[in-house]
């Protein structure tokens, strides 16, 4: 009569070692991927938008990307912009908690968790040439300029060109062609 086959603890330990061993160092989890992609998009938006001259105090003043909300995208942005310079402006990432900090930014990203508080902030940064980017259903309806939308597992974005124009920003046609049609 064969002996009972319980899974011996040794098997589990060996398998666990197997599982972790050799799994390549260069891996990442899926939720992180979404934010890494959005961080790369944010950097690209900065490339294809023109701010009015008065937004930069001097020729090599930093281009400030403000982040309201998730610390995760903050880290990916830091990593993405490390040492990068756009048109002589070094790119800098800042955590933003209120409107006065938001006004100083060139690009302000509002995470979906912050969407509840974004209304007043969007209103207050209106006159300050800030490119506002969000990732919630009604972001554009509240006055936001660019909104991330996930369609068929691809990260896409919609642009409210009028809002951007009113804020004194010029969006390159290249960015406009890749945006989703604004009436969805």
């Amino acid at each position: 009569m064969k002996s009972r086959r319980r899974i011996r603890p040794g098997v589990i330990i060996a398998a666990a070692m197997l599982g972790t061993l050799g799994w390549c160092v260069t891996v990442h989890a899926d939720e992180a991927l979404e934010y890494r992609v959005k961080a790369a998009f944010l950097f690209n938006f900065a490339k294809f938008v023109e701010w009015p001259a008065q937004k930069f105090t001097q020729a090599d003043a930093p281009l400030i990307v403000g982040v309201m909300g998730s610390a995760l995208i903050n880290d990916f942005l830091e990593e993405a912009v490390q040492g990068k310079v756009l048109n002589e402006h070094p790119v800098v990432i800042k955590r933003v908690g209120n409107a006065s900090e938001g006004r100083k930014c060139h690009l302000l990203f509002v995470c979906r968790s912050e969407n509840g508080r974004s209304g007043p902030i969007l209103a207050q940064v209106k006159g300050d040439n800030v490119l506002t980017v969000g990732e919630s259903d009604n972001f554009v309806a509240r006055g936001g300029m660019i909104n991330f939308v996930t369609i068929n597992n691809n990260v896409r974005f919609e642009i409210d060109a009028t809002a951007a124009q009113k804020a004194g920003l010029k969006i390159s046609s290249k960015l406009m062609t890749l945006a989703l049609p604004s009436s969805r």
Partner: protein
Amino acid sequence: MSSIRFQSIVALCFVLIARGVSAEDAGAALKLQPDLTELSLEQLTQIQVPSVTGASKFEQKETDAPSSVSVITEGDIQKFGYRTLADALRSEAGFDVSYDRDYGYIGVRGFNRPGDYGGRVLILVDGEQLNEPIYDSAFNMTDFILDLDLIERIEIIRGPGSSIYGDNAFFAVINVVTKSGGDFKNGELAGSYGTYNTWQERLTFGHRFESGLDILFSGSLYDTDGARRLHYKEFDAVNHGVAQGLDGDRFHSFFGKVSYGDLTLEGAYVSRKKDVPTAPFGTAFNDPGYNTVDTRAFVNLKYEHQFDGFGLMARTYYDYYRFDGDYPFAMIGADQLTHIIINRDYVPAQWAGAELQLTKTLFDRNRVLLGAEYRDTFQALQQNYDVSPRTTYLDSNHPTQRCAFYLQDEWTLSDSLSLNVGARYDHFSTFGDTFNPRAALIYHPWKATTVKGIYGTAFRAPNTNESYYTSPTQGPNPSLQPEKIRTFELVGEQQLGKYFQASLAAYSNRISKLISEEDDNGLIVFQNRDNVSARGVEMTLESHAQNGLSGRFSYTLQETKDLATGLRLSNSPAQLFKLNLSVPFYSDKVFGDLELQASADRRTLLGKEAEGFYLVNFTLFTQRLLPNLELSASVYNLFNAHYGYPGAQEHLQDVITQDGRMFRLKATYSF
């Protein structure tokens, strides 16, 4: 399993991992995460980011869903050579699919009683419920309505789902999402050949036009001889216990989907015939007369639109199910000779319904979902008769109706805490009302960690077969009540460094009013009578590499107990272990994919043990090596393990042995 076999598996894994690790080497250190800012905007829009739609009917990222969720992608299906939905589910933590040579039965978290028809798992295809009203079956093998190649992803949502989905969402909801025409250039032709003369062919046409019109049409055929000689020692008196050439299986299926703008029209059909070699229910052994035919079809029309301020989804559906069963009974006639009398089941059912859903964000912090559903099962006919001489034992039709309202609120309390609360009220014309709430608190204490605390209840309504089937040996019970489950679950998900994702789920289920057969003076009647507790822990570890190396490993400890007897349930292994490893051998073109599944012993109905077993599957998969061609070669049960699942009451066999080593070759050509 012998230590030699185990050591060779370990060696195989090391070789694969070493190969995978060196695949990207250019002499220098392994590539770190590539700089995504180097990519163009167009390239960024192409990157695939997985998400989950089933958990609470919103588009939601896996870590935010109010359940323990995992996703099987189409890449997994092709790379690991999954032949059926059952194959795919067997790779999932806490899942176990047993097979009795007729149907596959999905067990979740230790619960898979032999003889149950599987109505405690809800299977959806693009939101359309597949469980039928007669037996509640959750078809997962060759009787499943879709060819696996049409699947974009499978979302497995563990835990009670009745607060949104109602009936059958007892242990888990499996949401199968199909591909779209836009996923194809113009179409695909696929063919495969495997052990036992198994052939499968598929032709698909799919295209997305400039105007946005998206169409997809596909048809598949399948045929296998099955195992030619099956030995069952319990039947040694007849033909030495050998069932010869009685394991055949065949199906044909169609799928179509047309979408334009906010409208989608979708339909599917499958008809599958299985020869059954095990001679259950006292039928004649080694007689070719026993077969079951399951036909399932649906058509649905869906409208979805995001208005200014609220979202709307409206859909209407029509479903069809038909079961035909032929059972050969040996009777001694007046002439003292044995005659075979065929007893036949003819069971057609049709139902139609509509569902409406509204979503709206209130007070900036609440995403609210409100839904209503109405369903009319206007045909649920059960007929049973002897073919010749014609004697009718049962001929009854029991139409039923149901309606339901459900409400769910996803409340963002702070940037790290959200509460997902919901409840559903169902009214059934058969038994009345049931109310099922669910609450989940989702907390991100720091960026890479998620903790979820979940409480919920779910139900399974008594089906037409349990309530109304009548025969000389079985009596009806129209006053059956729904089964109930109450679940507490705690889930922790953690990103380990930037490379691994681990999760730990601990659950406690209390199941009551289980519908079981009871012997009432020689007459079998279904009663609400059993109470079961099920508790366990599921540990999983997952990672994905840039070069395509990926892996998933899970270990579950599960304990089930019948509260009346204090005994562990039958067919409930105490431990399950699974490992999936996908290794790129050459760029993103050639992959070696290994699967290892192990199960502890299971109790059978006779109180004996079906011994624990290890299964190893391996697939070599290639894509883009030759233009437009995908090729794969798979070996299943590589080490030819001898194993079986416990039989049910209707089987004389205590354990039903499963297949040994099998192989499959598959080619897919896209045009």
